[in-house]
Each structure stands twice: as C-alpha cells, then as structure tokens.
C-alpha cells in the first residue's frame, strides 16, 4: 500500500499542503476598501476577500476568510501574498495568467515581468491534470476580480 498516493505529490506539493493547513492572511479586514464573496456551489467552497488600497490605487493588503479544500485555501493564501503592491490592472492580469496556468499547466506568454509571481504560484499548476479541481484553484482569483470591479460576488462554476 505504501506509496499509493506518491504521484499526487505533483498536485499536493508541500507548499500547497502548508498553505492549506496554515493559510496566510486568513482574517477579516474590518476597514477594507473592497470586499467580495466567492462561491463554488458544486463543492461548497466559499471565500470572503478583503482588500485595502493605498492612496495611489495599489493593493496595500489582501486577506480572506472562508472554507474550502486544501487547493482553494492554498490558492487564496498564495494570492493574498502575491497581489500585494500591485495595481488593480496588474492584479487582474496576473489572475488571467494564473488561470491559464491552472488550466493548461503552462503560461507561454507570461513574460519576464511576471516570472517571480508565477514561480510562487507554480505549485498550483498541477491542477490542470484534474479538471474538476481547476475551479478550486481559480476561485480566489475570480473573487479578486469581483472585489476590484465592485461586483461583490463571484462564482467559479
């Protein structure tokens, strides 16, 4: 039996398990400038995202609360780290690239500018082999878009 799940280390890399168990920025920001709720109705995952912006429209702080699987929790946790300091457009662009990574496993046109960020997010690229799990990884990013656009609600169906 031993090693039954060994080949799942691609999907559940240590970084993921760690962020899944101990998510960073896992708290409510009472004085948030933007918030949104994201739902994945199929599996019941749900996150609430809080953003604080700097006067010149950069993300000063991102935090979240909610419930979800290791992948969605880790993805939200990593996201709150990497979007810090970005403008809305930069963050959304990064999200689009990340979604491509999650769906295909690669991101050919990510370019050098995003290289650092994409490397931080790379541990999540394993989901592309698990179509039903892609939406776990992208829920946080959908929610980020909703918060930045002021639509308040996102769903990753």
């Amino acid at each position: 039996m031993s090693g039954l799940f060994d080949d799942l280390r691609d999907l559940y890399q240590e970084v993921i398990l760690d962020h899944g168990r101990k998510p960073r920025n896992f708290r409510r920001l009472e004085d948030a400038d933007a918030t949104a709720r994201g739902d994945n109705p199929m599996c019941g995952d749900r996150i609430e995202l809080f953003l604080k912006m700097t006067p010149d429209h950069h993300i000063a702080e991102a935090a979240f609360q909610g419930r979800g699987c290791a992948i969605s929790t880790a993805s939200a946790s990593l996201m709150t780290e990497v979007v810090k300091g970005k403008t809305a457009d930069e963050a959304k662009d990064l999200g689009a690239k990340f979604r491509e990574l999650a769906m295909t496993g690669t991101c050919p046109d990510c370019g050098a500018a995003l290289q650092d960020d994409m490397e931080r997010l790379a541990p999540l690229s394993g989901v592309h082999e698990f179509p039903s799990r892609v939406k776990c990884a992208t829920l946080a990013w959908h929610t980020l878009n909703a918060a930045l656009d002021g639509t308040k609600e996102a769903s990753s169906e």
Partner: protein
Amino acid sequence: MDTLTPATFDVARIRQDFPILSQPQARGRPLVFLDSGASAQKPRAVIDAMVRCMETAYANVHRGAYRLSELATDSYEAARTATARFLNAADAREIVFTKNSTEAMNLVAHSWGRGVMTPGQAVLISELEHHANIVPWQMLRDDKGIELRVCRVTDAGELDMDDLERKLADGKVGLVAVAHMSNVLGTVTPVERIVALAHAHGAKVLFDGSQAAVHRRVDLQAIGCDFYCFTGHKLYGPTGIGVLWARLEHLDRMPPFLGGGDMISVVTFEKSEWAAVPAKFEAGTPPIIEAVGLHAAIDYVTAIGMPAIEAHERSLVDHAMGALSEVPGLTLLGRAQDRGGVFAFALDAAHPHDLATLLDRAGIAVRAGRHCAEPLHARFGLDNGTTRASFGLYTTKEEVDLLARALTEAREFFK
C-alpha cells in the same frame, strides 16, 4: 452475518455481468466503484436489451398501426407491468414513467400539490431529504401558500418520530414526503409506521424510493403509502427514465402535468379532454428504449433476488462499519439501526474534495460534497460536505477494505 448471503449470490460472477468493472483504469488499476448511490453501473443484460430494441424492434409506441409499432408498444407496456410487479403494485396503470425521480416528485408537487391540495394545508418533509424532495415543495409553498414543515433527524441520523407526530398533530398536513432511504446517512426510514401515523392524521404519504428500491424488496401493498418513486439509473438501468407509482384513485383525481401528444383523448382549440391514467401523465414520446432497459434491469435484479441483494449488502454494511471504525480521525455521519450501503464521512485531516481526488488516484471512485442534501449537512454542522462511499450489488469486502486502508494512508498524506 455472512451466513445471510445465500450460496447463490456469487459476487465474482455478478461482477462479470458488468463490462465496465473489467475495464482497466488509469495506470492499470482496477476500478473500485463506490459511487453507486449516485448512479449504478449497467449489466450486459441491460445494454443488450437496449441494443436489441434499437436493432430489431424500434418504432414509436401507441397509435401504431403496424407490427413494429405494436412490438414497441408491447415492450413499453411490458416494462410497465414488470415495474408494477417489482413494486407489488395493485395495477399496472398505477405506474407512470417519468424521466427520473426528480420529475416524479415534481409531478406530484405540481399535480397533486397545485391541483388537489388547498392553501393552508402543509407538506411535511424531513431534514434528511435529497434536494429533489425539498425544492419542489418550496416552489409549491412559494406558489400556492402551502406550508412546508420539516421533521427533525436525531443525532443518530434517524427520523425523530416524536417530532413527526407533533408536526402531524394539528391535522393540517396533507402530504408527508420523506425518503425511504437516505442517500447520505444510509438510514432506512420506518415506512409502515410513518404511513400509520400520517394516515391517522389525514395525510397522504409519498416515499422517495430512489435509494431504497435498489437495495430492498419494495412491497407497496405492505407499505400502504400513496405515492412512491424511484429512478432507473440507480437500479442498474439507463438514464432518462424514472418511475412514479400512485394509487389509481389519486392519479384519477390529479390534473395532468405536462401537456402534449398521447395524454389527451379529444383536442380542439377550445378544450382538451384528458386521456385515461397513466397516459394522462405521459405527454410526448416516452422513454421507449429506456423502458426496455429498465425492464431488463428489473429482470436482472429479480433473477438474483432482492432478498439476496439485501443480504449481501447487509453483510457489506456490517463489514464496512467495522473497517471504517478503525480508520483514525474518521467520523461517520449517521448510525441508524436500519441502514443500507451508503456511508458519508469526514476525515479530520482532509477536506472531502481533496480526499476524493486522492482516492481517485488509487482507483477508488467516491463522491465528495453535500450529495444534494445541503440542509442535512448543515444539520450536522458539516458545511464542507462529506466524502461518500456507496455500494452496489457488485461491491466486495475487498473493495471496502481497500477503501479503509486508503483512508488511513490519505490521512498520513495530509497530516
């Protein structure tokens, strides 16, 4: 409990009847299919019957003035007769074919709920219902002013019969609609007692037999209820067909639900007259090929014997209770006295979704989520959902053991 399984029940031989079970899965692992509660696999007999229908005897049914259409009509009506016999219904005309059990319950909610019940009356469901037995009644409530009451479930996952009685007491409940077997807890509800209580308080009774009809002999004459439904694809039959049984006197009183061909006797633009039961409820071209498949499925399980299937499952359930109780960190949802082969559980270290992905890699197909029973999960404080393993007649003890070992190892993986 092994002795309860008759010698004739040879699970190894039965597995050979199901082509998919011998299909090698990813990385050559055999398929361990523990999601039969969502939908069961199909035996060769069902597949062959459908193929034979399409290759040799297909035409639209009824009104046919030629031999092939008569053949098809005979096959379709033979499926109805077989279904009536399977449920021990008094009359084949009491069998209405729908597309699934969800439609069957919607039919009752529309046709009985809107056509026969009156505002001020109540429908009593329970906390352990599948959404298919919740949402149609909510729609009825919002549409027609019918109150919706919910019978509590005990911590063991059984219906709280005192609560049921309390909620019947004022005589306003027109219909009790509960599952014969829960698709999450495995609980088999005390149908005869429910009928006695409900009828004593003037309420009709519908049982959602989607799970129960697969696992036990259903004897409608003994149960004494008013409506019963099940769905073909869980009974090793095809998708696209479900069954509503209702007493003839009820069907006669109910207005039709869907309008169209075959359900009317006279049509003018001013007015249509409804056809007799069951045609009144079967508008349009029915699931002909699917009825043939369902008939084959009924013949298949009947040949094995529902008592033998039940006994096999009882021994599997006992085995699973033992094996799962040894998995560290595992909490089983529901511990009903009378239960079938459905086990929903939570593992302390792993989210259900992650767990299902892991098990899938080991070739074990289980379902994660709330299994269309969101309120039940809320009742047990499990908003993350559960992982569910559900058995079919082809499930073996070895598969259950593999599940238990995989769960133990999965816990290590996530810890």
